[in-house]
C-alpha cells in the first residue's frame, strides 16, 4: 500500500511537471495549429539556463530565466517560419538542433550539471515544511502551484482578444487577416507563450531531480503529444478550461501508466517507444475509423462476387 502510494506520488510529481510542456503543446498544437518540433531543445535549454542561474545563487530568478529562455527559443522558431519562409516543421527542427550546442555552451561546455547542494524552490520548500505532515510532499506542492498558475493564466489568456486571435490563426488564417490581424504576429506571440511553459517545465524537472544533462528533453515532444492526445480523449469536445485540465490529467495518466509498467519490470528505455506508439494510435485511429466503411464494403463486394462465381 505504502509502495503504491509513493508510486502514485512519483507519477503525480513527474506528470505535473511535464504537464507544463503538455500545456505548451495545447497552445501551439491544438490552438495555433503548429507542431512545434523545437520542444525538446527548448525543454533542455530551459533546464540548462535554470540550473546555471540557480547554481549562481538565485533560486527564484532561475524560474524566470528559464521562462525567458523559452520565450527566446519560441521567438526564433516563430521568426523563422513567419518572416523567413521556412516551413514550420523545419523551423522547429532547425532550432532544436541549434539549441543542442547552445545548451552545452550555457552549461559551461559541459553536457551535464549537478544541482545536489544548490538552493532551489524545491529545497526552500522542503526546509519550510520540515517537521510538518507535508514534509515529503514538497515536490508535489511546487509542481501543483506551477501548474495551477499556468492553467489559470492560459485559460484567461485564451479568452482575451489576443488569445482568440491565436485560436483563429489555427482555425482559419484567412479570416484572421480579414479581421486586420497579422497571423505572423499571433504565431509569434503563441509560440513565445507556449515555449515559456516548455522552458519552465524543463527547469522544474532539472531542479526536482537535482541534475541536468543535455538529453533531458530528448523525446519530450512525443511524450507531451501523447499526454495531450490522452487528455483529448478524456475530455472530448468541451470548452477550453476543461480541455486544459484534460491536458494536465493526460500528462498524469501517461506517467502513472508508465510508472506502473516500470514496476512490472518494463525496461525504462521503452518509454519513448511507448509514447511514439500512443501518438501514432491517437492520431491514426480517427482516420482509420473513417476508412473502415470502405474496407467493409470492399469485403462485402468480394464475398458477393465469390458467391456468384461459385453459384
Amino acid at each position, binding site marked *: 500500500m505504502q509502495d503504491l502510494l509513493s508510486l502514485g506520488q512519483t507519477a503525480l510529481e513527474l506528470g505535473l511537471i511535464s504537464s507544463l510542456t503538455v500545456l505548451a503543446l495545447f497552445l501551439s498544437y491544438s490552438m495555433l495549429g503548429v507542431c512545434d518540433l523545437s520542444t525538446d531543445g527548448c525543454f533542455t535549454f530551459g533546464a540548462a539556463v535554470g540550473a546555471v542561474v540557480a547554481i549562481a545563487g538565485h533560486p527564484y530568478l532561475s524560474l524566470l530565466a528559464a521562462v525567458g529562455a523559452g520565450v527566446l527559443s519560441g521567438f526564433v522558431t516563430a521568426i523563422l517560419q513567419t518572416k523567413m519562409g521556412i516551413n514550420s516543421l523545419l523551423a522547429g527542427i532547425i532550432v532544436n538542433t541549434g539549441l543542442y550546442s547552445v545548451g552545452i555552451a550555457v552549461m559551461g561546455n559541459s553536457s551535464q550539471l549537478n544541482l545536489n547542494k544548490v538552493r532551489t524552490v524545491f529545497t526552500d520548500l522542503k526546509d519550510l515544511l520540515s517537521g510538518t505532515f507535508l514534509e515529503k510532499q514538497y515536490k508535489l506542492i511546487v509542481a501543483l502551484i506551477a501548474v495551477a498558475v499556468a492553467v489559470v493564466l492560459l485559460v484567461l489568456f485564451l*479568452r*482575451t*482578444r*489576443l488569445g*482568440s*486571435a491565436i*485560436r*483563429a490563426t489555427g*482555425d*482559419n488564417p*484567412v*479570416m*484572421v*487577416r*480579414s*479581421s*486586420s*490581424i*497579422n*497571423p505572423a504576429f499571433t504565431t509569434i506571440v503563441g509560440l513565445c507563450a507556449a515555449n515559456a511553459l516548455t522552458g519552465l517545465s524543463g527547469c522544474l524537472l532539472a531542479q526536482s531531480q537535482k541534475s541536468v544533462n543535455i538529453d533531458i528533453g530528448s523525446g519530450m515532444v512525443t511524450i507531451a503529444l501523447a499526454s495531450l492526445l490522452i487528455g483529448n480523449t478524456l475530455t472530448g469536445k468541451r470548452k477550453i478550461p476543461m480541455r486544459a485540465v484534460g491536458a494536465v490529467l493526460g500528462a498524469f495518466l501517461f506517467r502513472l501508466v508508465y510508472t506502473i509498467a516500470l514496476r512490472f519490470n518494463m525496461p525504462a528505455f521503452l518509454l519513448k517507444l511507448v509514447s511514439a506508439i500512443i501518438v501514432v494510435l491517437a492520431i491514426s485511429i480517427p482516420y482509420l475509423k473513417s476508412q473502415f466503411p470502405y474496407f467493409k464494403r470492399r469485403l462485402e463486394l468480394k464475398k458477393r462476387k465469390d458467391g456468384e462465381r461459385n453459384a
Partner: protein
Amino acid sequence: MLELIDISKTFSPGTVNERVALNKLSLTVNDGDFITIIGSNGAGKSTLLNAISGYFLTDSGRIVLDGQDITLMPEFRRSRFIGRLFQDPMSGTAPNMTIEENLALAAGTGGWLHTIDHADRERFREQLSLLGMGLENRLKHPVGTLSGGQRQALTLIMATINPPKLLLLDEHTAALDPTAAEKILAVTDKIVKEHRLTCLMITHNMQSALEFGNRTLMMDAGNILLDVSGEERGKLTVNDLLEQFRSLVGKSLTNDRMLLRNE
C-alpha cells in the same frame, strides 16, 4: 473614392502558363457606388478584387483609396477599411470558434486583452438580427454548425460591423442554393444601403448585375470593356448586355456558371 491607375498583373511570367490577368486597368470608384461586375471566365474579375484587397502585389500601377496610396500596404492592414466576401462560405469564418468569438475578432473592440462583455453581445445581437435568421440567439454556437448560407450571412455582418470604406464581394452567393443566394443578395443590398457602403460585386447572374447597384462593369482580357451607369444602364436588358459583349469582343460571352436570369 478608390482610384486604380494602370494596374497590371501577369501570372507565371516567362513560362508556358503565362497569363495576363490585368492589363493596364484604370478605374475610378466614387463614394457610394455599388458596382456589379460581369465577364467571361478568366476576364480578370477576381484578380481585380484580389489586387484591391492586397492579396498580391500588382506588377505595376497604383491603388489609391481616399487619397492614400495603398499599393504596398499588406493585406491584413488594408482589411481595416476593406471588407471582403469570397465565393466559398467557409473562408470568411473560423469554424471551431463561436459566433460571438468570430464577431469579436472582426469588430476588434478594445485592446488585445479585451474579453467579450455585455455591451459587445448587445451589439452583435443587434447586427445579427438584421439577417432575420435567428443567429442572434445562437451567439455561443460554433460557426461550424451553421449552413453555408448562414455562414456567408455571418461573414457579411463581420465584414460590415465596422462599416468599411469599400466592400468587395467575389461571387459571394455562387456556392449557395438558389433560395439562400436570393436571401443573401437581399441582405447584402439592405446592408449596403443602410451603411451607404461603396461596393464592388462580381456576379455570374446577369439579371442581378442589372438589378442591383448603380453601375455595371463588363470585363474581358484583364480590362474593362464596358462601364455603364445612370439612365443608360436603366434601359439595358440582359440581351443588350450579351449583344454589347459580342459586338465589342467578336465572340459571345461565356462563363461556366453564368445565369441569364433568376430561376
